[in-house]
Each structure stands twice: as C-alpha cells, then as structure tokens.
C-alpha cells in the first residue's frame, strides 16, 4: 500500500489523531472506523388500532412530518384473487378504469385536478388488494379527499374507456413479454401457484376478455365498499383529524354485503419440476428462476426467512453471487428474493446465466439452496452481516414518501402490525443460527420448480442431460414435454405429465 506525506491540520483532528510522519499517514486512515451503536427503533409513533366509521370503513394514520406531502392510501380487499376463476384480469381492469373519468369529470379533467393538487395518482393491484394512492401537497388534503370521494361515489364505466384500458393493458403486457425475466418469473409464479386464486395475477394477453360495462360495474359494486376497505392517511395528521375529514366526505359511501370466499393457504409444490420458456429472441442470455411456495410464515419465521434469503442471495456478498458469478463464472448475476402475501409466500432464485453453463448453473443453484438446510448451514459469521444489512437498510427504505406509504399499505394489507414496524428491529435481532437452520429445513427442503427462459434451439443440446422438462411458449402456453426413455434418450413425450396438470393439493 502506498502512503503519502501530508501537512498537519491545525484543528482538533490534529490533536486527536496520531501525528503522521513524512511518508506516513495518520493511523485512523488505515482501517474503516468502528460503528457507533445502532439505533434499534424507527423513532416513529407506533401503529394504533384503526378507527372504524359507521359505514365500516377502517381509518389509520401514519404520522410523518416535514415532507410537505399528504398520502392517501385506499386499500380495497379485491386484488386479483377476487377476479372470477378462469377469467383473470377483472380486478386490474376495474382499478385501471378509476382514472378514466367520473360522472362529472373526464379523464383529462381528473388529470388536471391531480396536477392542481401538486399530486400523483395511481392504482396498484396485487394478489390480495387494490391500492389506490393519491399523494398531494399537504395544504390540499381536503381537496384530495373530495377527489377520492368523487371517484368512489360517482364512477362512470363506459365502453370506450373499457376498450382503451384493454388496449393499454394489452400493450403493456406485450411490452413486458419482450423481457425474458418477466416471462420466466411469470411462468414460475403460475407453476408454483397453479390452481390457487393467486395464480390469476399472472394473466397474459390471451386472458384479457372484452369485459362489458355490466361486468365491470358489478365487480365495482360488489367489492368497492367501505366495509371492504381501509383508508390510510400519511403525513402530519392525527387519527381524530383524519377520521373527521374522511367521515365528512365518505359518510354516504354505502356498505355492501361482502361475501368473499376464504382464500386457502398456498401449498408447496409436490414435485420438483424443470420447465423451459422458449424465447427465440434470447440467444445471448438465459435466465433461471427457481423457487418454492409455502403458506404464510409466522412473524418469527418471516424474520428468519429474511435472514436466510440474505445469506442465500439477498445481496452482493451472498452465497449465490459469490459462487455462480465470482467463483464459477457461470452467471452475470444470481440473487434470491422473498415475497409474502396474506395467505402464502414464495422464495425464489433469479439468475442470468451463460447459455452454455445453464445446467451446471442450475445444479449449483440447487446445491446452494439445499446445503443451507443440511451440509452447509448458515454460520454466525454470515448471519450477523445479513442482520446488519437488514437492520441498516430498513429505515433507508422508508425515507422516500412513496416508500413509506407503500410500506404502511403493505403492513395493513397483510393484516400485520407493529411487528413489521418499530418491532422489525427486535424480530431481526432475535434471529440466530438455530432459527435460520430451522427455517432452511422448513422452507428450503420442499420441492423447487425451476423455469429456464431462453432460446430453445440453442439450449436443446445442453438440456439433454436432464431426465425431463416441459416446454412453454412466451405467453405460457404448454408446448411439449421432453423425457428420457429407458435407453436414456430424450424424446418429446406428448402432453403435459399428469402430475403437473393439477395444482398443489388438488386431487
């Protein structure tokens, strides 16, 4: 290491620091400074139970001052799992139509209103709920609530708007389907959640029906009810102010008879499976997604899973990246992710690998997953850095107003509470090697489904070492199964294997 001579500063530092001699540097420069003690709380008010208006609407607040903004998050418990079975997309459709006009304002006029509030308006649909978000300058909160009330109480669904939205969603999907990663993840999601209502979120263009005004209106009338919703105000406001303001504009929102069928917990896949999504345009790169599904974990299990995921592939120093990219040079990247829903969760690996290394990469991914549950469990020396990352990153991920409101919506939408808020620190701190091992044994020893997205023609020879795999097209339509015969030769084996024609747990 090269050292250089520097003249002394005259400030306090010169007194505190070791005096550098010519050709030397101060001692404190040689190594990174030790951390000070970590603040183990957000310092934000705890989540209090929601207030409930007379029409059943739940109201919560998340206090945050100094941003200049107010956030309005309306959760409607009618995510894609509420779309009709066999006709997914309706929940997304209805949510998208909210910004297309009301009985008194056109889409362009709505857009102008949002601009005049210094705001943004968007809707987001996931498996469990629809999230209507309106962020405005704080002085415009009352006008923003009026705006929201108009959308909810005076909606207008026109054939023309439905056609526009259908076109827009279709173009959007077409665009996304160009991405091999999107195609791979969607296919993994479908296979892991096959037969479960959550599968409906993974719809493709072919499923987009020409919905009628009646169908749209029926869905809206059925689910967009105050007793099926939760409104969260974020900003410089307290619960009594929020309740009064919201009650003022939404007291005429009539409750409905919400009879949602209960959603069963997600079940793990019953067998290992490998699939190829044929993307002829993707000759240069190949994507591997490999994951498993499970019922929603308890909060302590969730914390252990988060740490486990971090060790496996959650960051730049994780095992997957170190092995597949740095050591073996099979992959450009290899990470893992954890997703938790109201009734289940997924843990999956995503990697961009060199096409010629697809099978060795796949084997290494499987080895890394399995070894955490047995041969090579996470060590304290990996777990502590993983916890350091999670604890340090948590408040950073709440800084941006949009992130803060999204986190709040997620906590409430999942039916969680303080344990994912100020209690987050304690949950992560409690994770130790024993808990991580137990989580690995409970969640990583289940069958994994693997989806490879790439050019079939380029990959066929390389995949010939596999015992069997199924081929799908970019839209997710089944094409063929390849399986080895008794002599070990790989053949197209007709239709989909019976064990994969039903979802997990289905007879």
């Amino acid at each position, binding site marked *: 290491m090269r050292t250089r001579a520097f003249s002394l*500063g005259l400030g306090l*530092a010169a007194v505190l620091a070791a005096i550098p001699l010519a050709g030397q540097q101060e001692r404190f*420069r040689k190594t990174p400074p030790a951390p000070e003690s970590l603040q183990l709380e957000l310092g934000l008010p705890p989540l209090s139970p929601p207030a409930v208006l007379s029409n059943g609407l739940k109201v919560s607040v998340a206090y945050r001052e100094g941003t200049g903004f107010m956030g309005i998050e309306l959760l409607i418990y009618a995510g894609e799992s509420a779309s009709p079975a066999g006709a997914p997309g309706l929940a997304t459709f209805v949510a998208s139509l909210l910004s297309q006009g009301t009985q008194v304002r056109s889409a362009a006029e709505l857009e102008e209103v949002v601009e*005049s509030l210094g705001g943004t308006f968007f809707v987001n649909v996931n498996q469990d709920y629809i999230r209507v978000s309106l962020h405005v*300058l704080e002085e415009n909160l009352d006008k923003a609530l009026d705006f929201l009330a108009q959308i909810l109480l005076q909606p207008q669904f026109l054939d023309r708007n439905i056609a526009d939205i259908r076109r827009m969603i279709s173009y959007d999907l077409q665009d996304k389907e160009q991405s091999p990663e999107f195609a791979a993840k969607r296919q993994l999601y479908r296979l892991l959640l096959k037969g479960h209502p959550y599968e409906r979120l993974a719809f493709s263009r072919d499923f987009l029906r020409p919905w009628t005004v009646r169908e749209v209106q029926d869905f809206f009338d059925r689910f967009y009810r105050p007793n099926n919703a939760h409104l969260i105000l974020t900003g410089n406001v307290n619960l009594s102010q929020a309740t009064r303001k919201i009650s003022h504009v939404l007291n005429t929102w009539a409750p409905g008879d919400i009879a949602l069928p209960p959603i069963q917990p997600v079940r793990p896949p019953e067998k290992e499976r490998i699939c190829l999504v044929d993307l002829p345009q993707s000759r240069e790169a190949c994507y591997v997604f490999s994951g498993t599904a499970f019922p929603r974990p308890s909060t302590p299990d969730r914390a252990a899973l988060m740490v486990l995921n971090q060790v496996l592939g959650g960051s730049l120093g994780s095992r997957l990246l170190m092995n597949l990219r740095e050591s073996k040079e099979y992959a450009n990247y290899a990470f893992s992710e954890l997703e938790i829903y109201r009734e289940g969760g997924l843990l999956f690996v995503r990697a961009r690998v060199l096409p010629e290394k697809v099978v060795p990469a796949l084997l290494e991914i499987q080895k890394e997953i399995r070894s955490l549950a047995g041969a090579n469990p996470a060590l304290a020396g990996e777990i502590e850095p993983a916890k350091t*990352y999670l604890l340090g*990153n948590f408040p950073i991920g709440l800084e941006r107003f949009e992130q803060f409101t999204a986190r709040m919506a997620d906590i409430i939408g999942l039916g969680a509470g303080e344990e994912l808020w100020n209690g987050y620190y304690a949950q992560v701190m409690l994770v130790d090697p024993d808990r991580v091992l137990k989580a690995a044994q409970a969640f990583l020893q289940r069958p994994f489904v693997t989806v490879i997205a790439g050019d079939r023609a380029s990959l066929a020879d390389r995949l010939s070492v596999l015992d069997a795999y199924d081929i799908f097209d970019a839209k997710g339509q089944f094409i063929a199964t390849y399986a080895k015969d008794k002599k070990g030769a790989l053949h197209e084996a007709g239709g989909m294997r019976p064990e994969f024609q039903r979802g997990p747990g289905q007879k």
Partner: protein
Amino acid sequence: MAGLFGPASVFAQKGGAFPLTHYRLKNGLNVVLSEDFSLPVVSVAVAYGAGSILEPQGKTGMSSMMENLMFSGSANVPPRQHFNYINRVGGTFNALVSEDRTVFYETVPSNRLSLLLWLESDRMRSLEIGAKAFEDARSALLGDLQDRRANDPYFESSRKFDELLYGDFAHSHSLLGTEADVRSLTIEDLRSFYAANYGPNNAVLCITGSFDKLRTRELVSQYFESLPRGRDPSPPAGPLALARKRVLQSFVEPAATSPAFYLGYRLVAPRSSDFYTLTILDYILFRGRSSKAARRLLNPDAKIAYRLSGGIERRRDRSVYKIFVLANNEVMIEYCQTALFSEFDRLKSSPLREDELNRYKAMFKQDYLSRLSTTVDRALYLGDYFLTLGGFQEFGLDLEKYMSVTAEDVVGIVARYLTPDNSIILDVRTK
C-alpha cells in the same frame, strides 16, 4: 468554538423546512450540515465543481472517466470496494457527473457516518489511478459512446445544437467527449485532472440526516482537515449575452428516420432574479402532458409531433431553454414550429388565468419538495445550491420566490426572452 474548528465562517440558519450550518475548513473544503431526526439514517454527498466544462480542447471525456476512476481504489480502500463497504451496512450509494459537477453520494444507517467520511476522505486525498483502472474506465466510456451512437440517431445533431446554443467550447462540448480524444488520453492526463480539480477547495461536503452536530464536526475535522489544498478553481466565464439575431441552421443525420428540430433560447445565470419566472415558465410550456407545448403538439386528436422533450437546462453559470421536437415529415416540422411560436405569442398577449398558473406552480412545488424528500436528496440539493451560488446567503427563500411568480411576470419574461432574435433553431433532416 470557531477557533477549535478553524477559521470557518460558521453560521447556522433556518433554511426553508430544514436547518443548515455551513462552514469552511482551512484547506478550502466547504462543509454543510443539515440535521433531520425523522429516521435513523444519514447521507453524505461530496460535490466537486468538476465537470466537462473544465476539460481543454483535445482532452474531452476526462470528467466522465474520473467519475468511474473515483471507485478504483485509494491508499486504504481497495479497488471497487467502496460499494462493498456501503452495501454491507445496508447502505446505498451512487454518483453523477454533469457538465459542471461530479457528485458522490451515499446513505447509511446513522451509526455509520464515520465510514462514509473515511471512504470519501480517502479518495479525496489518495486516489490511485492505476493502468488497469485507467484502461477499464476508457473502455467503459468508449462503450458508452458507442451505445449512445447506436441508440440515438440524433446524437451528432444534439452536439451541433449545443455548440450553437452555448457559444463556447467549454460549455458546449459533450460530457462523453469524442472517441478520438478519449483514445488519446493518457494516465497522466487523468492524474493531473484529478490533482487539479478533485481537491477539498473545489468541493462541498454535505451531511444530512440524524447525527450529532458537534461529534460530526469533530469527525469532519479528523478526516478532512489535513487534506492538502488543491489548485484554485477557475472562475466561471459568466452568462452569455442574449442572441441578437435569429440563428437558423440545418443538419443532416444519416441514421435518423424522421425529421426533427431543436429550438433554443439563451437565458440568464441560474438563480438570478429572472430565473425563477423562467423556471415556472418551463412548467407552463414544456413540463408534462398538460403543458402548453405538449397540448399543442401531442394532443391525441390532432397530433402533429411524435415527441417533445426538453426544457430549462443549466451548465454552471449559464441557463438555456432547449427543446427537441420529432415529427412525421418536413411539413409537420413547420407546423410544430409555428404552433410553438403561436403559443409563446398567446402567453404574451393574454396572461394566464390564476387557477391555471396555480396548477403549474403546484406541479413545480411537488417536484421541488420531492427533490428534498430524503436525506440524500437534501444533500444533493445543498451541494447543487452551493456550487451554483457559492454560498447560502439567500437560502430558504427559494421556494417563496418561485411561488410568488405572477401572470404578469410570465408575460414580461416571454416578451424578453422568447423572442425571434434570441431564438436558435437547428433543423434536422434525414438523408
């Protein structure tokens, strides 16, 4: 206390919604502290007044390469490990380079502030530009240039237009440099550029978030006070006078499939008195789908342009309006120009309604506050503010100045700046 911390012009003031303390170390490093205890995080931005404006002719591309090389390791930080140190503690980091500045910025949990000061001070005092890092940075920049050429059929015309608009080499040449220059750069060129422009006296260190001010001043002193002063930065050239005669030129882009044009106007120095109205006018005319220009050119019922982009742009001491319009054919290009000029004329002859002006101002305020919403946003803002004005004398009055713009101000500004004499147009033709 000032004696302990050096000869700093120490002052603190309430700046807008957040507090601010600014002082200067003996070696010329400006330090800005702004506390915010909302969340246990802290951000650091080190903004150097170094960008492509400082590159001499024949040596373009150096500032872009330097942005890369600042991660190539220093006396105590191994190459490419800067991001590992930050990632391990859950932090985030990034860097940006522009014509007039290069900024490195990070956010970490508040107990790791000293880590950031250690990292930033080490590369400020002892960056090691080795042969491999130099060649890697050169290859990366040549790759960027190649990508840009491959993906932007209007790349050459945009360079040409900048020459017309900004008037001198320093302000107008491309941040990416030219292939010929980049290929001819030597490792010594980069070492000299670093020594001249990346020292404490050409930088501002901004720290925002949850920290103890006294302790932080001690840390800043410990890590930065002994760093040697660099060469004194060159003074800005000053704003250009408005053009006196309309400039109209044409340019052939062989790879372009549609005709286009650039339209520009020379404006005043950033944050001078007219700048506030010019910024609001930018929202009225060019920002978003409901801006006057977008409604006129991109209206779905009578769409005459494919694309409209641009708005106000700053490069150190100069600001301009720079608009790019892509259309179907030459006839539409003419329509678009006529439509834009008629919008400008309309703004001169009939002032905006109050509700209309308030809508644009609300959009501006939303963007303004969004740019201050995180500790790192605020650190970037403070660095930008200081590099633009060299101080914080009027800090905190900014937003009020923008929000007090009136419809009459807009009329006056349109009449003064959006004149045919001050317009610069580059018509882009296909082969």
